[in-house]
């Protein structure tokens, strides 16, 4: 059956109009996803986290003006999981409720990942697009600048940027992260554009006198957006790995913020005294979050790989 669709795909490619073709290839991707159990698992994990993030105000109604602060329960030692605090509390110094922190942390992490990816994606597409499409000396210069970013010690420079930006918090982290992460997208977009740029349909578009913008937006980008989208999906998980590592080192967010890494960094002091819950619950959340995106990323990569596609 799928053999047949694929053949139709190729034979009708020339006659079909652009959007119908694109729609068909999207439905093909969906077909492949449905056929692979691991990618379904990944999708459901991501779906679960998104629902959790959206429902956070319902699951744990905030009672302070800033919902990303964990409510405090004072006690001399961290309280173990109980009915009142399903995942326990962090104890001194922040006295936060871990269940609340982990749920709102989901929302926080998702927002971080989406904002950072959105900014990097846009910058990368614009920058890489210009560089790849116009080529020549401009391309050379723009790519040298991108290469500079690859030689920076990320962790160190990120900390320096965070300090230079001053205030700790959500947007500081987003900006600091995006400054270092966009070059990756720019490079991939440029590579894709170089691949697509010399195709016949681009020549055709040029010959009928379309403007550069029209050609880039209408003919080149739609044909290389999958690869960039795949990259974005794979980065969605690693962003949270990195930001929570930074938080663990005590950079970027202030203590008491409902963020997985911050909670775990407090857990470090209590772990050897037996208070495992502070570390373990947020850790499991991070692991599953990253797992979801990894599985989806891997599956998408296999699906979008033209060599793999032909095998179906």
């Amino acid at each position: 059956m799928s053999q047949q669709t694929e053949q139709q795909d190729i034979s009708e490619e020339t006659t079909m109009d652009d959007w119908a073709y694109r729609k068909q290839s999207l439905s093909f991707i969906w077909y492949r996803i449905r056929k692979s159990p691991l990618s379904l698992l990944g999708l459901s994990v991501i779906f679960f986290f998104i629902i959790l993030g959206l429902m956070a105000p319902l699951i744990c109604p905030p009672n302070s003006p800033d919902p990303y602060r964990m409510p405090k329960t004072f006690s001399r030692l961290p309280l173990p999981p109980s009915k009142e605090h399903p995942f326990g509390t962090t104890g001194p110094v922040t006295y936060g409720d871990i269940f609340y922190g982990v749920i709102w942390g989901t929302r926080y992490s998702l927002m971080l990942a989406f904002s950072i990816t959105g900014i990097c994606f846009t910058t990368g597409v614009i920058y890489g697009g210009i560089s790849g499409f116009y080529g020549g000396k401009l391309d050379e210069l723009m790519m040298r600048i991108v290469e500079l970013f690859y030689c920076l010690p990320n962790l160190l420079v990120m900390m320096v940027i965070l300090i230079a930006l001053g205030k700790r918090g959500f947007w500081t982290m987003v900006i600091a992260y995006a400054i270092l992460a966009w070059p990756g997208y720019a490079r991939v977009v440029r590579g894709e554009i170089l691949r697509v740029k010399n195709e016949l349909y681009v020549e055709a578009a040029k010959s009928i006198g379309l403007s550069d913008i029209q050609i880039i937006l209408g003919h080149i980008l739609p044909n290389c957006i999958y690869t960039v989208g795949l990259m974005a999906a794979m980065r969605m998980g690693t962003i949270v790995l990195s930001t929570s590592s930074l938080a663990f080192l005590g950079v970027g967010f202030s203590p008491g913020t409902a963020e997985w890494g911050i909670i775990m960094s407090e857990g470090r002091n209590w772990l050897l005294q037996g208070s495992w819950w502070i570390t373990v619950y947020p850790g499991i959340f991070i692991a599953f979050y990253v797992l979801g995106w990894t599985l989806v990323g891997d599956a998408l990569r296999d699906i979008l790989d033209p060599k793999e596609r032909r095998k179906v």
Partner: protein
Amino acid sequence: MKVLHKYILKRLVGSFVTISIIIFVVFTISRMAGDPIEAYVTPETPPEIVELIRKKYHLDQPIPIQFIYWLQGVAEGDLGRAFSRGEQPVTEMIARYLPYSLELNIYSLILTLPLSFWIGTKAAIKKDSLFDHLTRLFAILGRCLPGFFTGLLILAYLYPTGWIVVDPRFTFPRVTGLPTIDALLDRDWAGLLEAIKYLSGPLITSFIGGFASNTRILRSNILEELSKDYINTGKAKGLSNDYVEKKYARRNAMIPFITLLGMRFAGMLSGSAILEAVFNRVGVGSISAAAASAGDHNTIQAFTMIYATMLVLANLIIDITYGFIDPRIRYGEEK
């Protein structure tokens, strides 16, 4: 060969320019992160003395001029003083702490590489077998668990057993700076055991992460090579499967892997900050992290310079060796 020489020269000049620009950019950013004068004065210091200190460290000059003074210092082997660590000279600090990080990363590479090589190849050859599935499961787990989480779990389980030490007392003299080597040189067996216990926690953690990602990359590289035509040709002309898989596929799969390895080695030195934080280990990672959060300009610049130099040089060496390994890569001269 003439082309090769010209290429190497061109790359060397390019690398030098890259490193200089990076250092200048970081210099500027870290100057924006705070006035360095704050490190030397308190709010009560009389303004005349503040001015004197400003003059002494050339802080009254514009940033490009300050940068030139700093470069002059570097040329003389003086990287300035780290005020975040009691005015210790940065050069001394690096000499003291770099060996600790090198020790961790070198041992981790020595352990990880052969194992991930062996297992990655085996999993690729026996694709979809139980062995392959287990390998992939482990690789995915290793990738999803953040390093500080595995580290903390290992700490929680092994610290009470006494297999991990976080505050070692070394009695042997310092020769190379690498505790395990120094203990060996001194034939101090108790000291060696202590050094190993000090190393074991971060080493296991870094092994889990590194092994998982290396195996994953090697497996997919080898799978890609195995699907190519030359493999069939090799088999068709009567070579054994084993020979084709090990000699043909594995060698070709190594090329992209080496590039990654070079970048990772440079990255590991800064990435070990997290492992060092978990296990209370000293090393450049934690020192540079502390310097960055204290806004210690001299230390930040020194570490950036070392990192950028190492990464650029690693890439340069890799690119040049490629020319020898793979005759198809002609350094873009054909274009």
